[in-house]
């Protein structure tokens, strides 16, 4: 017979340990999920191969440079969108449906711990996305400009883009039912891919639409990444635009997030 003792000895683990445990759990679950992997890796990789490895990139208005040089930063933007927004929104929506958010709400993991863990898992996925897509890009002849500034620009864009789109994903998962989040997140992903200046520069849009498209966070993300790797500059204006989106959407998340 087991002689376990149940005498109370409660206490919360240190914050970094809780965040690391949560990030590790979300990351493990994500890489086990085929649909999430499709969104995060297979679609961006397929697009990069199509745009950079076939003649398709020459026929589409990706930018003024070599197709692979224009395609890599824009596909990176799509990858950031998929991991920080679409995957995060769908996963969080179903966590709410399955009672996981409620379960964690009654645990020592605080709201900040939950959000930090989720961001940690997204950043871990993005590291893999960056490695796979950049590696494939180099194999296809990608020649980024700018050296250190380009690297800093890409890191800045990934962080600001994750903050903005992650907030949008959490907002959607907080106010919609899980099924509605699934549909809306996929729809918005497609709409931004086609109409949000992810693959096509803003200047290629009809003149009447350019003013609106330029304000979208997707345009700031993709154009910022393109500026960093094609022109070799740190895209401060795009970073500021994404940071403003992150502040507004983050505020809305703080007003709408529920543990149940």
């Amino acid at each position, binding site marked *: 017979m*087991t002689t*376990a*003792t*149940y*005498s*109370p*000895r*409660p*206490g*919360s*683990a240190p914050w970094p*340990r*809780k965040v690391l*445990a*949560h990030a590790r*759990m979300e990351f*493990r*679950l994500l890489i*086990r*999920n085929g649909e999430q992997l499709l969104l995060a890796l297979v679609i961006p990789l397929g697009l990069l191969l199509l745009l950079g490895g076939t003649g398709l990139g020459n026929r589409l208005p990706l930018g003024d440079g070599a197709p692979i040089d224009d395609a890599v930063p824009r596909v990176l933007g799509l990858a950031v969108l998929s991991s920080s927004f679409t995957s995060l929104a769908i996963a969080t929506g*179903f*966590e709410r449906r*399955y*009672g*996981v958010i*409620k*379960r964690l*709400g*009654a*645990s*020592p*993991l*605080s709201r900040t711990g939950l959000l930090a863990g989720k961001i940690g898992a997204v950043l871990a996925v993005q590291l893999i996305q960056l490695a796979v897509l950049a590696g494939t890009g180099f194999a296809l002849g990608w020649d980024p400009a700018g050296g250190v500034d380009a690297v800093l620009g890409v890191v800045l864009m990934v962080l600001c883009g994750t903050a903005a789109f992650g907030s949008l994903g959490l907002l959607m998962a907080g106010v919609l039912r899980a099924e509605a989040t699934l549909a809306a997140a996929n729809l918005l992903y497609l709409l931004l891919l086609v109409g949000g200046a992810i693959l096509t520069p803003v200047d290629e849009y009809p003149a009447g639409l350019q003013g609106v498209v330029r304000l979208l966070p997707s345009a700031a993300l993709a154009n910022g990444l393109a500026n960093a790797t094609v022109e070799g500059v740190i895209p401060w204006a795009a970073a500021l635009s994404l940071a403003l989106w992150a502040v507004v959407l983050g505020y809305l998340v703080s007003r709408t997030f529920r*543990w*149940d």
Partner: protein
Amino acid sequence: MEIDNLVVRYGEKAAVNGLSLTVTGGTVASVLGPNGAGKTTTVESCEGFRRPYSGRVRVLGLDPVADHDALMPRIGVMLQEGGAWSGVRALEMLRYVATLHTHPLDIPALVERLDLGTCGRTPYRRLSGGQKQRLSFALAIVGRPEVAFLDEPTTGLDPHGRREIWQLIRDLRDDGVTVVLTTHAMDEAEQLSDQVHVVSAGKVIASGSPDELTEHHTKSLEDVYLALTAPPKRETR
């Protein structure tokens, strides 16, 4: 745990309407009542998920909403259903929740006690109803809480499983854990509880030990409960 004149509203409807009860530390208290009586809302108010419209809730001297982060490490919550990712393995989930606490229970001993060893690597969505219940129970107590809120802990368990959970609840109480039990199983409440609170229409309509409520076991708790919560008879013409 003290609840004083609690009112919780969902829009215009009051789910809990002036409910008061006290649970003494180191005892087992059962909250009984018909569906929609306000049991779950009351317990969720103690867990910080519901904000009172009026009244006062204190658990271990803390306000569950205002002191949420301070209270959560000190309580354990067993949800009525769900509470785990569909793809997470049973043991993986238990280890994860244990990591959030400073002095969790010994995992192998808990797994053995709750007979979770055979399903440790099974994804949550493939667990049977009984296995899900036992895992949920383990998640509620793994952090060695001072108060454990258990929502229908034996639903879906076979008679052996029920008896094992009952013994575990007694062991928790004997080791100093306060247990708040929400259940529809009258035999469970009668067997385990030091105090029983019957809730109807958002209020406590009867409280006492099983011995008091059943008038020294001259009636069954189920008969007492049915009499207390019987719907008003319709007039016949």
